[in-house]
């Protein structure tokens, strides 16, 4: 552990970073949206967010919570997958890390796109999107993991080819 402190820091960084990032992502996007599109000051935008955190029809706190729930599942998975077995080889660890990063990237991208779309087109479909988002993100965990590992394998083949 002393020889290689970075993997532990990386795993725990991904673990807490993904949860906190996904939780605050809709709140940050809303604040930026109010600041830029509705031309509020930063302080007004934050006040707007605070007031609408639990307000019926807005429920931004719940939106953050629902968005973060699948990331919490992914975070638990990555912590166990990358940290449980100390006997994994460096190559095996790298493959696992690529898979986990694939999951997180795909989930974060989808979450970002959903929140931005709901802000740009505020109608009933936005609410439906928030309802379905956790399930979609859960499905994206294995899909992103597979995609990450496939991309890593392709990158390895490419490096071998160049070598």
């Amino acid at each position: 552990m002393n020889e290689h402190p970075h993997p532990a820091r990386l795993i725990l960084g991904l673990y807490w970073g993904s949860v906190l990032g996904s939780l605050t992502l809709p709140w940050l996007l809303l604040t930026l949206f109010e600041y830029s599109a509705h031309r509020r000051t930063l302080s007004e935008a934050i006040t707007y967010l605070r007031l609408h955190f639990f307000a019926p029809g807005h429920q931004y706190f719940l939106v953050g919570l629902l968005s973060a729930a699948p990331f919490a599942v992914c975070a638990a998975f990555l912590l166990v997958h990358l940290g449980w077995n100390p006997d994994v080889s460096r190559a095996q660890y790298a493959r696992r890390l690529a898979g986990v990063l694939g999951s997180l990237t795909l989930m974060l991208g989808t979450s970002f796109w959903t929140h931005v779309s709901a802000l740009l087109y505020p109608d009933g479909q936005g609410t439906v999107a928030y309802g379905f988002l956790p399930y979609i993100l859960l499905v994206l965990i294995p899909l992103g993991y597979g995609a990450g590992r496939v991309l890593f394998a392709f990158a390895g083949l490419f490096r071998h080819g160049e070598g």
Partner: protein
Amino acid sequence: MGQRARRRWPSLVTRRHIALHLAALTAFFVFLVVILWLHTGPRAVPGLIDLLHDPEPTTRILASEWLTSLGRDARSALPALIETALHDPTQDVSAAAATAIRALDLQAARDVVNGSFPMLWDPNAEVRRKACVVLGNLGPAAKPAVPSLITMLDDTEEPVREGAVTALGSIGIPQAEIVAALTQAMQDPAAAVRYRAAAQFAVHIPVTAAAVAALVELRHDPDKSVAALADVALEHAGQNPRHDVSALMALLERPGEKDYALQRLAQLGREAADAAPILISVLKDPLALNRYLAAEALRSIGPAAEEAVPELIAALHDADPVVRESAAEALEAIGTPEAKEALNVLRREKAE
């Protein structure tokens, strides 16, 4: 590279760390859920009462709308809402508070009506206009304010007359008086007032024969928008009221549309007689506003709603005094010997 690949990592994170971090994540989410729970349902009410005193009008409007959505859970906020409806300096905030009160408690709505009467005679036109807006937002619960609002149609200030017309359209009952007043308002010298009056017939108030002549005349109004609205209202006048009743009875099945459908049925008068059986069942509705509107609709149907007499007699002992009052008026309008006897008993009980 092969040698490097075979090399083992030292312990990345210990299993004890993993267990601790998983426990911390679970605790974190439990904490978030507790925060959410503390800010929803009746637990949010004390915070919302504080928000009603926020210096920012938009915040006070949000708090009023939020309290409306909480329904009966927000009844402890009624004193603060009444205070806001009557004395908030911003008209939109008072209007939002009145809308909340309308949904929460009929008696509180009547308190706001009584509190608004002096404001209708205030020397400041803004105050008079605000009182009209508040009464309009109380909807049918502000029925006792109708005679006063009708006198406001002679106010010297155009915005006050405009506010009074809008309020009369939103209150909607008793229909005959309101139709007569709005018909008169369609001859107002101000185009904005004529526009508002025509809009009530185009959207809120069923067009009766009495209003048709005035609407036909309004089609030649020099203001094009007024003339166009008169056309729209006259299109509605040609529709079959029996179709209206069927559509409104279907709307009664939708919880969100119930009060609207009941208000419209109360405006149709005797033509809504087919809806009497369903209106009788609404007299047992858990929401006082719906029970009140059902009694009002039966009152407007009159003698044709004879079958509702036993349920209306039972409604004389309703928990809500406004529903009791409306049930008594309905029995008076139906006027069967049984209804009259029940009213006599009630009067004797009150006298004793």
